[in-house]
């Protein structure tokens, strides 16, 4: 099995699916000859030509609006938004149009568009190259939201997403785009949407993370284990529909829970997860569910490492949560 990083895995998935399904087209800013600013579509223009890998004018609303029309017509568009920070000019097309198209047409018109976009901080990108907007899209009924933490999941989930019947926001954690490497199976395989993965088993505290922060959580878990703690670490992989069974089973076992994400805390996905778990595991909870998140500020430039929920903060929350006595 070849060793790949996330960019290569995404590229591999796109190539496989474009070969398999002539309906798949890629469109976006600089995705063609250049192969995308992160090179995720590199080589596809050469292989599949300018009718299937298409550089567009600079307008995200046009990219997504066009993709919707293409999907209605029967194609399988996989638009790229260069940075998720620039998805907002397309927000109306995503939230009012794409997410509601099947429902509002009485089921006559599915709109299976898979929007790929890099998310998150840690690359010295400041406000506009670092945001994690997942909760806005999870709040929007009609969208599937995916965020892999490693190349194996990235490839398998992207293949599932493109073959699915629902619109998907496929968030790629750019901080570990190259750093997260793995032995990726060759050829075709899928990883199911909606299934979390227990990355590390334990029985004292459940730690929930995804994307780039999964790696911080992993580091914190290792440090905790070195101190004799037994955390259970869950990689959500699909944010919506969240794998509620996996979460409930784990928290019923551990009685304690720490949720990690990069986005600002208030109205972030952590609040939803905390509520879902509290509603379902009330009698099992031995400590308050904790959230370790980005602060409620715009994403800063110089202090990004102080902004992000890095391992020391996660570790401390785990320690306090496991030590908690009512």
């Amino acid at each position, binding site marked *: 099995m070849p060793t790949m990083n996330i960019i290569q895995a995404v590229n591999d998935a796109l190539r496989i699916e474009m070969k398999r399904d002539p309906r798949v087209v890629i469109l976006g800013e600089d995705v063609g000859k250049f192969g995308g600013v992160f090179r995720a579509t590199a080589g596809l223009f050469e292989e599949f030509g300018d*009718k299937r890998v298409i550089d567009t004018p600079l307008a995200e609303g046009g990219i997504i609006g066009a993709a919707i029309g293409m999907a*209605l017509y*029967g194609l399988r568009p996989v638009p790229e938004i260069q940075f998720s920070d620039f998805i907002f000019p397309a927000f109306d097309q995503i939230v009012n149009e794409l997410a509601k198209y099947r429902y509002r047409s009485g089921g006559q018109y599915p709109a299976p568009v898979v929007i790929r976009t890099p998310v998150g901080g840690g690359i010295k990108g400041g406000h506009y190259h670092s945001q994690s907007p997942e909760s806005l899209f999870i709040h929007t009924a009609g969208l599937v939201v995916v965020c892999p933490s490693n190349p194996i999941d990235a490839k398998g989930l992207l293949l599932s997403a493109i073959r699915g019947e629902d619109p998907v926001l496929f968030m790629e954690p750019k901080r570990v785009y190259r750093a997260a490497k793995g032995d990726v199976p060759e050829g075709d395989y899928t990883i199911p949407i909606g299934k979390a993965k227990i990355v590390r088993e334990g029985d004292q505290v459940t730690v929930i993370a995804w994307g780039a922060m999964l790696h911080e959580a992993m580091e914190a878990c290792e440090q905790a284990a070195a101190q004799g703690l037994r955390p259970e670490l869950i990689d959500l992989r699909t944010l919506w529909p969240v794998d509620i069974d996996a979460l409930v089973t784990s928290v019923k076992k551990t009685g304690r829970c720490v949720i990690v994400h990069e986005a600002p805390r208030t109205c972030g996905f952590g609040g939803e997860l905390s509520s879902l778990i509290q509603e379902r595991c009330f009698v099992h909870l031995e400590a308050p569910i904790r959230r370790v998140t980005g602060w409620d500020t715009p994403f800063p430039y110089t202090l990004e490492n102080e902004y992000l929920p890095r391992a020391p903060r996660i570790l401390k929350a785990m320690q306090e949560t496991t030590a908690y006595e009512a």
Partner: protein
Amino acid sequence: MPDTHAQSKAAARRQKSAEPDDLISVLGPDNRKDAPTDLSPDELTKIYAMMVENRLVDERMITLQRQGRIGFYIGSVGEEAAILGAALALRPQDWFFPCYRENGVALMRGLSLRNYFDNMVGNGEDPVKGRQMPNHIAWRPANYASVSSPIGTQYTQAMGAAWAAKLKGDDVVAMSFIGEGGTSSNEFHVAMNFAAVMKAPVVFMCRNNQWAISTPLSRQTASETFAVKAMAYGMPGIRVDGNDLLAVHRVAKEACLRARNGEGPTFIEAVTYRVLGHSTSDDPKVYRPDEEVEPWRKKDPIERMRIYLDARGLWDAKQEKKLREDLDVRIRETFAAAEAAQGPTIESMFEEVYARPFWNLDEQRAEAESFGTAPKH
């Protein structure tokens, strides 16, 4: 350092630039019987009957809304030629992306009156399952896309569908409608621009009915016409008398041919007038004088067609009477049936959010069903 290449191109453009500002008319002010058209007598009387049906349906729905029997209505009174004349240029395989006044096109392309009324009452047989307001329909068998309220979004989607057809090599054109107010929207710009760059086979229709709710067109643009906006995109812009069905049909057909010939998109401004309020929620008396409306009533597109058909001997008072009487009966009976149909089930509220409901929707459906139907407020 003059860029001579751009300059010679520019000179060529200026020669063509007579186009966008001329108002193309075929019927002319007198609706002359020798107005040229490639529509056959049969096609002419059919489209005329369709215009009348559209009008009578609109009038009836407005009455029913006043009686509280439907919740809302937005019609196309006075704009039938601009709408139906353009859509008449389409073939069955072509796609149509409506704004919210083009329901007549759905009927013309085969949506049953019954289904149209199902949508008006939002019952369980409504093609969109009672999920959207009246006039917000979708009808896949006719490639009639879903109406949505947010202004302009349909233009961009039409561009995408047309582009998809081109990529697939299909002989298919997409047509979309927008109001002149909608030309101010984001969507107008990106749709026009992408379509021109990609040479997508799309016909962009603009109903310039001169008002956007209470806002006059002078608050939408400082350009002399809307048609001229096409020049910004390197696309032909056409200005046509929107109350002249023959003229609208002609320019729309030409635009469809250009699209099919690989020449890309066309933008057509159909100059017409919104003689009624914006919708049943609006009272235009507050913001515009009746004198402005009066002259436009005289230019009623249905009346103009009737005079023309009459002059050509294709239509007479007897036919007119019968058409209206038949329609009246059909509309009343059909509406009564739609009104009597069952509403959508609570279960249906949770379906088709996704291809299959997720666990949260299953849970929530069970909870909603446990409360049953709510008392109306």
